[in-house]
């Protein structure tokens, strides 16, 4: 077995470090603890990695595995009172950052190393002008005149592609969209020509098309300016598209390190393998069932001895539980923390049951399309957001959240609804659920117009249409136990004769969604995100509905958990004959689960077709752009793909463009497009699109 030193001499490794000798940054055996009232959280345990100049290094891993805090410890921005760096070194340019005095460290921050955070909406100071925030670092680190600083700020804004920078400098953050704010954050990071930029989930909060723009920008800058980058993310697609090297963390430890291609082509750690297999992919045929990593990551307050992944690992053997494996170099230069890495390399992961062979495409459901279960006809939901008093002739501000949407949903099918943030997906769902009042059009459920129902009839319909929400943390009442949450609707509707019967039913439901009956007595905060999402599903099922609106039910979950929930939803549909309206912005997920897919943009329907038809032959330029923007978790494929990145941003819903709402960003757009709203037309059999260019 080669040692680490030897491994670093491996050609693959050398290639990855671009032949440059000394690493710019080297994190060595870092241990980080949080001392809290509930105990010691060992948030980082012995991670090491290097970053070479000009390189883009990715750190991936599940939520809570220590990605962010390890990055923050480089900047020494951890909370002073609780965080303790117990041991390790962070060598940067030959100096150990951990040994620097506070003021020395301050002069490193922003000058040599800068950092970009996840939330562009909150990371800029709302009361200071953009120009000032951009130049603040300059004033901090170098003697610079006002005019020179302004020059530089202009230059930076141009560099990150913000149009009309002169004017923008004197504006405030709230006047910028999310994507532009993130560009500003990057510009701030670049201000002093740093050697290293650390980006913590820089695009997670952004839409796919914007995400693609930002990542490309970062990659270009890194290449052109020779800036090294550490990108923290849980999106493997992004890693595949841009990273040179990848570090995979699991439960505070590094489990695998390699250059990007090897990670994707020959993952060796069972966790990495699971991670890669559990995401649905646009580039592969649709699988029957997603691979999952069962179970949950360990609690860092009291991690298990032995391999941390052992409990969830199909390949685990007794040794794994008994002792903790070390991070070891493999022949190819990959570093893996697994006793069985060589065996896996030899026999392939399938042999260990780590990833089932791609299942057969599910037998196509037979769906009766003669009579829709739910029929939306020219549905409109407008919001009046003008500020109360419209005395002064100020015109009403109206957000046309859903504008002229017609849809049929048939019994037993899943209709996927995709589109970027703010396009009205949720509003469609909420209007169906009668949580918002439709301002126009009709909703017919089982041929009854919902607007005309008596309150008794409405109650019946309410039982039949249920909902699952995105955020597992706020969709359960924190003051009720799981049992109470699930039993409440049954008791209100008197579906169960008494509490005892309800309790039993709760147990059944919990089992149905893959939880344990004993969890009925717990409170939501005592469950993990995935478990809560299952509770949400159980609550929806409690009323025995036939139609469920799933509003981004998996968007907030880690990929490994996401797969579990998707599988569960599919299983339930099969067993109970449910119909889903499945709202999501992840095209791959939608592709996986839906029978038909609708694409929305700025409140309007852009395209509607059967799933395979839509993904194989997208017609609308917007759909095409969306599909292009989604990175595929495979480095080699990504490098070969041709990225046409959709420019611009989604216009304000208060002032949607004339004519086709997409015309401002559409590569095909011409004058005619801006004149009239294109109707949704059946371009091919059962394939509708709203574009006059087709």
């Amino acid at each position: 077995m080669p040692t680490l030193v030897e491994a670093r001499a491996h050609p693959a490794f050398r290639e990855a470090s671009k032949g440059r000798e000394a690493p710019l940054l080297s994190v060595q055996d870092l241990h980080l603890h949080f001392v809290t009232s509930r105990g010691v959280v060992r948030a980082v345990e012995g991670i090491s990695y290097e970053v070479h100049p000009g390189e883009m290094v990715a750190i991936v891993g599940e939520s809570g595995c220590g990605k962010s805090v390890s990055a923050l410890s480089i900047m020494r921005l951890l909370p002073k009172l609780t965080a303790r760096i117990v041991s390790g070194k962070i060598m940067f340019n030959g100096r150990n950052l951990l040994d620097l005095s506070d003021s020395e460290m301050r002069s490193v921050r922003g000058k040599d190393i800068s950092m970009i955070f996840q939330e562009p909406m909150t990371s800029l100071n709302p009361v200071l002008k953009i120009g000032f925030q951009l130049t603040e670092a300059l004033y901090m680190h170098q003697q610079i005149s006002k005019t020179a600083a302004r020059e530089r700020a202009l230059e930076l804004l141009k560099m990150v592609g913000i149009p009309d920078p002169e004017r923008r400098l004197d504006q405030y953050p709230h006047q910028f969209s999310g994507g532009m704010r993130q560009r500003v954050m990057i510009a701030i990071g670049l201000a002093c020509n740093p050697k290293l930029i650390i980006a913590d989930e820089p695009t997670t909060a952004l839409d796919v098309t914007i995400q693609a723009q930002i990542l490309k920008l970062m990659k270009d800058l890194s290449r052109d300016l020779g800036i090294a980058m550490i990108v923290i993310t849980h999106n493997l697609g992004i890693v595949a598209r841009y990273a040179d090297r990848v570090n995979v963390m699991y439960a505070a430890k590094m489990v695998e390190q390699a250059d990007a291609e090897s990670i994707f082509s020959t993952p060796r750690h069972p966790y990495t393998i699971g991670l890669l297999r559990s995401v649905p992919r646009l580039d592969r045929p649709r699988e029957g069932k997603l691979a999952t990593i069962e179970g949950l990551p360990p609690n860092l307050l009291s991690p298990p001895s032995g391999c941390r992944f052992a409990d969830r690992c199909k390949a685990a053997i007794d040794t794994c539980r008994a002792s903790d494996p070390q991070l070891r170099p493999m022949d190819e230069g990959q570093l893996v923390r697994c006793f069985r890495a060589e065996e896996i390399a030899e026999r392939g992961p399938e042999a260990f049951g780590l990833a089932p062979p791609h299942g057969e495409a599910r037998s196509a459901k037979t769906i009766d399309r003669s009579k829709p279960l739910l029929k939306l006809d020219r549905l409109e939901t407008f919001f009046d957001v003008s500020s109360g008093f419209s005395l002064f002739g100020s015109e009403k501000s109206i957000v046309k959240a859903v504008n002229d949407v017609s849809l049929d949903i048939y019994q037993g099918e899943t209709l996927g609804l995709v589109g970027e943030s703010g396009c009205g997906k949720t509003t469609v769902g909420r209007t169906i659920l009668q949580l918002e009042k439709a301002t126009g059009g009709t909703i017919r459920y089982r041929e009854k117009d919902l607007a005309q129902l008596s309150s008794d009839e409405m109650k019946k319909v309410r039982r039949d249409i249920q909902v699952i929400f995105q955020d597992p943390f706020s969709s359960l009442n924190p003051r009720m136990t799981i049992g109470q949450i699930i039993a409440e609707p049954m008791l209100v509707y008197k579906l169960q004769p008494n509490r005892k019967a309800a309790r039993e039913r709760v147990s059944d439901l919990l089992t149905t969604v893959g939880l344990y009956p004993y969890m009925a007595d717990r409170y939501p905060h005592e469950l993990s995100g995935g478990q809560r999402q299952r509770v949400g599903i159980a609550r929806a099922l409690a009323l025995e509905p036939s139609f469920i609106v799933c509003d981004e039910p998996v968007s907030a979950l880690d990929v490994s958990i996401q797969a579990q929930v998707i599988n569960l939803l599919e299983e339930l549909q099969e067993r109970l004959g449910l119909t889903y309206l499945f709202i999501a912005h992840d095209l791959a997920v939608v592709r996986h689960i839906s029978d038909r897919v609708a694409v929305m943009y700025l409140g309007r329907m852009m395209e509607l077709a059967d799933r395979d038809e839509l993904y194989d032959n997208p017609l609308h330029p917007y759909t095409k752009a969306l599909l292009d923007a989604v990175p595929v978790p495979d480095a080699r494929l990504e490098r070969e793909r041709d990225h046409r990145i959709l420019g611009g941003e989604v216009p304000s819903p208060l002032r949607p463009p004339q004519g086709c709402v997409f015309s401002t960003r559409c590569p095909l757009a011409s004058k005619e497009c801006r004149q009239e709203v294109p109707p949704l037309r059946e371009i091919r059999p059962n394939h509708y699109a709203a574009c006059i260019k087709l």
Partner: protein
Amino acid sequence: MLAYTIRRILLMVPTLLGVAILVFLMLRLMPGDIVETMLREGGGNVPAHVIEQERVRLGLDKPIHIQFISWFGGILQGDFGASMWTGKPVLHEIGSRLELSLQIALMATFLAVLIALPLGTLAAIFKNTIVDHVIRVISIAGLAIPSFWLGMVIILLLLTFYGWIPPLTFTSFFEDPWRNLSQLIWPAMAVGYRYSAVATRMARSSILEVMQEDYIRTARAKGVYERLVVARHGMRNALLPVITVIGLEFAFLIGGLVVTEQVFNLNGIGRLFVQATTRGDYTMIQGLVLLVAVTFIMVNFLIDMLYAALDPRIRYK
């Protein structure tokens, strides 16, 4: 922005109307009226017809809605009526007391801000250390010590140790600043302590909250001096809730210094309030309540304007 301002001003109207109606009704619900106090207080044998005659003179015999209409109609023309007690115009009576109340409120505000901002910031920065504990104890004590008690103690100390008490009557600051201050500094201190306690606590929690924000982390990541992080990035955002507290407290001071004015024998609005209420001087109480309500609303309005000045998110709405 202009539309916003106008809208805000228009929104005051229903509130003020509500206040006017409420105070009017409330007063008529109170048993007894001013005539009895005025004529019977001496305990003499005043015949009933004299009392009745006086009621008629004051218009108290008319039906309530007529009284209201004539009062409110007067207000719309800028006439707040005459005090039923002295027969002099309400505005004149209030005016002669307002300067004093306003000055105390301003001085107390000044003191409070001077104390609260540094202490609150210190406490936030040194959260959970001894500094924080000491500041918190000092500020909670400010809430806990009744200001009348503090006022009593201040006066008694001055009297016992210096055989001196502050001047008894008000002199305008512009006439004789020294005499003016030597009268008003004491009540301003007694009130300012409590006031600063409220503001200190708000400053502390607000700064603590702001210092958790993402943009603070951004500033640190830029390598900004910690002092500047607090002063430039923290304070400005943390100031908003502190301003609210200060503003509301200020509005309260205009009419709420009842006990302090009593203790320091100040001829201010609060005292007038109590006198008017105990006498049942309807027009005076109505005028005063409206004054306080207007102050309160105006202060709220100013706070919002200040918010807008400090927070561009509001400014550009």
